[in-house]
């Protein structure tokens, strides 16, 4: 039977990690969330960010008018799915989508009516973006231009980060972006006025564009809270962007510009920031219309947010709506060939990808469309020193492996994977800990008495009975010291 053979993949499917935005939403108050749920586009986007079981449960409850008893719903749950079901319910109550009750199950009425409206259409909330009037004089940007714009913006940011430590002077992103990078701890200016990439910044570079984007947006949301921006407006604007259309349905292209008129002041201010990140495009800063780019419209999906960024993949179809067209897209992302002799061939002419590779390989040759390098102990240790972990290197190589490599099983040569991990272990031979050394005890009995007390507190890191000394942690010092003082007084 076909289903049995699927069992292995199911485990992966159900251990689907929650979206990074969900914890942030859960930390918000119920009133904030309820205000957010008033907009159908927000409900639809949040619905898409949830896990598969939550989504099915919401759908089951969506069209019911009255509350369902919790027992009725749990009767549908198979015994092996009990844990998954319970955690799904707790996510839903955490987001105030389901009402918190152990007896009855019902959706938050605001969420319910908005999601219904999203699915059936209608209403007059205008939450999916008010289209701009047709402008016959100027042609709106086409998809290729939008993609190029988004890519250029995004790579400027990444390229600035990756080359900040190397004394090059790449194009600087805008002040707002720099501030955001600094706030998020991806870069800092510890050594003078020049911004330097931090170890978390190096890790950030190896993530997928989708993760990077959400990472920055989350930071933006935290900042918005401090800047006294209305979080509901910020979030609903992001969600609105994610449900907007790029401007092409199948082969037909049509104007997809949205009007800025109905936006609030906060959202107009956001427009400026998002323009810097490459999420939206405007002809002029004063323009009354804007177009979302692919970075924005794929926020709630897992399709690649950026068009393939190297020239060999240029033939990728731009149609994001067709699954058939999409299936060829992801494969072309890969460009790295790794051999068992630690050699890396990267078929790319993209300076950003070259720079990211340069983080952990030693470059040998560069050709117009090919970079050849070696994974060496020095290069990997340099990367590890920058805070990149061995797993991150391996996962970067895996996700960007050339289609040719995908025929191999395992994908990366085992020797190379093991060696990268060994190089990481090598660094961990020495552990450092801050603390205090206690020595010169008057008698062996004194020493043993204090040591026993310190061991009770679990603060001993090292001891040497022959030299009558031991090393305790920083946290335990006050206690140990007090103990010794009390003892010397009493004697």
């Amino acid at each position, binding site marked *: *039977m*076909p*289903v049995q*053979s*699927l069992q292995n*993949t*199911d485990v*992966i499917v159900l251990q689907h990690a929650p979206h990074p935005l969900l914890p942030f939403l859960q930390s918000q108050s119920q009133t904030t969330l309820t205000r957010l749920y008033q907009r*159908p*586009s927000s409900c639809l986007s949040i*619905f*898409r960010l949830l*896990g*598969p*079981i939550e*989504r*099915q449960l919401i*759908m*089951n409850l*969506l*069209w019911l008018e009255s509350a369902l008893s919790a027992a009725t719903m749990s009767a*549908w*749950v*198979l015994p*092996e*799915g009990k844990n998954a079901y319970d955690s799904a319910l707790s996510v839903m109550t955490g987001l105030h989508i389901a009402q918190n009750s152990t007896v009855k199950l019902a959706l938050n009425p605001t969420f319910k009516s908005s999601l219904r409206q*999203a*699915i*059936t*259409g*209608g209403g*007059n*909330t*205008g*939450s*999916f973006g*008010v*289209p701009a009037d047709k402008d016959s004089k100027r042609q709106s940007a086409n998809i290729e231009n939008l993609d190029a714009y988004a890519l250029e913006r995004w790579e400027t940011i990444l390229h600035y980060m990756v080359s900040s430590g190397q004394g090059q002077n790449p194009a600087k992103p805008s002040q707002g972006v720099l501030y955001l990078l600094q706030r998020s701890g991806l870069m800092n200016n510890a050594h003078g006025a020049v911004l330097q990439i931090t170890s978390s910044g190096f890790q950030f570079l190896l993530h997928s564009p989708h993760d990077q984007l959400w990472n920055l947006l989350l930071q933006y949301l935290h900042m918005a809270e401090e800047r006294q921006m209305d979080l509901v407006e910020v979030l609903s604007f992001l969600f609105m962007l994610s*449900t907007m*259309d790029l401007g092409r*349905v*199948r082969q*037909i292209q*049509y104007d*997809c510009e949205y009007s800025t008129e*109905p936006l609030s002041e906060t959202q107009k201010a956001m427009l400026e920031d998002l323009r810097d990140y490459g999420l939206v495009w405007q002809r002029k800063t004063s323009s009354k219309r804007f177009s979302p780019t692919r970075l924005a419209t794929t926020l*709630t*999906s*897992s399709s690649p947010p950026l068009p393939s960024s190297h020239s060999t993949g240029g033939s990728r179809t731009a149609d994001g*709506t067709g*699954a*058939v067209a999409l*299936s*060829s897209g*992801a*494969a072309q992302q890969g460009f790295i060939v790794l051999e068992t002799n630690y050699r890396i061939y990267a078929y790319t002419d993209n300076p950003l990808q070259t720079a990211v590779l340069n983080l952990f390989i030693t470059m040998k040759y560069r050709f117009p469309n090919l970079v050849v390098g070696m994974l060496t102990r020095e290069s990997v240790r340099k990367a590890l020193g920058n805070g990149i972990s061995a797993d991150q290197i391996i996962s970067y190589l895996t996700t960007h492996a050339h*289609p040719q490599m*995908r*025929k191999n*099983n395992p994908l990366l040569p085992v020797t190379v994977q093991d060696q990268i991990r060994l190089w990481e272990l090598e660094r961990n031979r020495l552990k450092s800990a801050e603390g205090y050394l206690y020595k010169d005890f008057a008698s062996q009995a004194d020493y043993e008495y204090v040591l026993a007390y310190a061991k009770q507190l679990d603060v001993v890191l090292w001891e040497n009975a022959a030299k009558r000394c031991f090393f305790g942690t920083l946290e335990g010092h006050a206690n140990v010291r007090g103990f010794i003082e009390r003892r010397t007084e009493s004697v």
Partner: protein
Amino acid sequence: MEKASHLSVIVDLSPTQWHLSAQTSNQHPLSVETFLSQLLAFLNAHIASKHENSLVVFGALPGKSVMLYSPTELLSDDVPSLDANSYLPFKLVDSTVVQRIMNEFDAIGELKEEPPCALVGAVTKALCYINRITHPSSTTAGVAEDPSVIHDPRILILSVSPDLSSSYIPIMNAIFSAQKLKVTIDVCKVYGPDTVFLQQAAHLTNGSYIYLERRDALLQYLIMSFLSPTPIRKILAVPKQDKIDFRAACFCHKNIVDIGFVCSVCLSIFCQPLPVCSTCRTKFPINTLKRLNAARPTITPANSRIGLPLANLNNTASPRPTPTPPNGMSSLR
């Protein structure tokens, strides 16, 4: 990462059956308009679940089957304009499906006699479509873990017409292709009597067959039973039928038979013993024929329900060569 899922919906659009279904003499009359509005909400719910979920809608009309919606092909002339109050992909599905159905209904016009609905044609088209998207073109061959490849294709048949016994062999063949492609076939019987073949289709592909009892609650039935992709069905159960009618149709008169006679060479099914198999031309000894004829029950309860223990024809209906020498026909008994 969670995989995208594909759903092909096949809508049975037999005008006669829908007319009967809308009659107020039914306990829960359901007109085709109400049906469509609930179906569209279901289709939107599928697209809403995940950005990459793909959807194709086929219609089975009298004598032909048509594609009503596909994300990659342009089927309707006008592209809906942007609207601040609705999500564009939803609007696109709704307007395309409705417009296509209206066009097809208009094209039917006045018919003296309605030809049967081309359900098999629609199922076959759906299978072809799934085959196309699950096996992408040769340029990307060898890619092991392409995230956008569809992993969990499903077909949902919304049936209103009764069984068409002449389509037994094509339906069985479609079921076997579905098994091979690992496609789950779900069946929702919206109106009319239970259909034997669709029950078997759902059973053999691990799908679920549901007879709609409360037809005013169509949408809730659809969402609870047919929206969840296969991995979720391991956690939230979907109803399965407890009684399956495994009867087959004979190859000679296309009747659904309780007791059939199976050719020992090619496994063709007949409702009466034959001297020569009409499929593989095997001749059977006269003695066997006599014996079998004597053993035949006098009444052939063609319309009775299952319950006879001999009706288990599961899987034996696929004609295939067997190495046994032709030595006669064997009864199923």
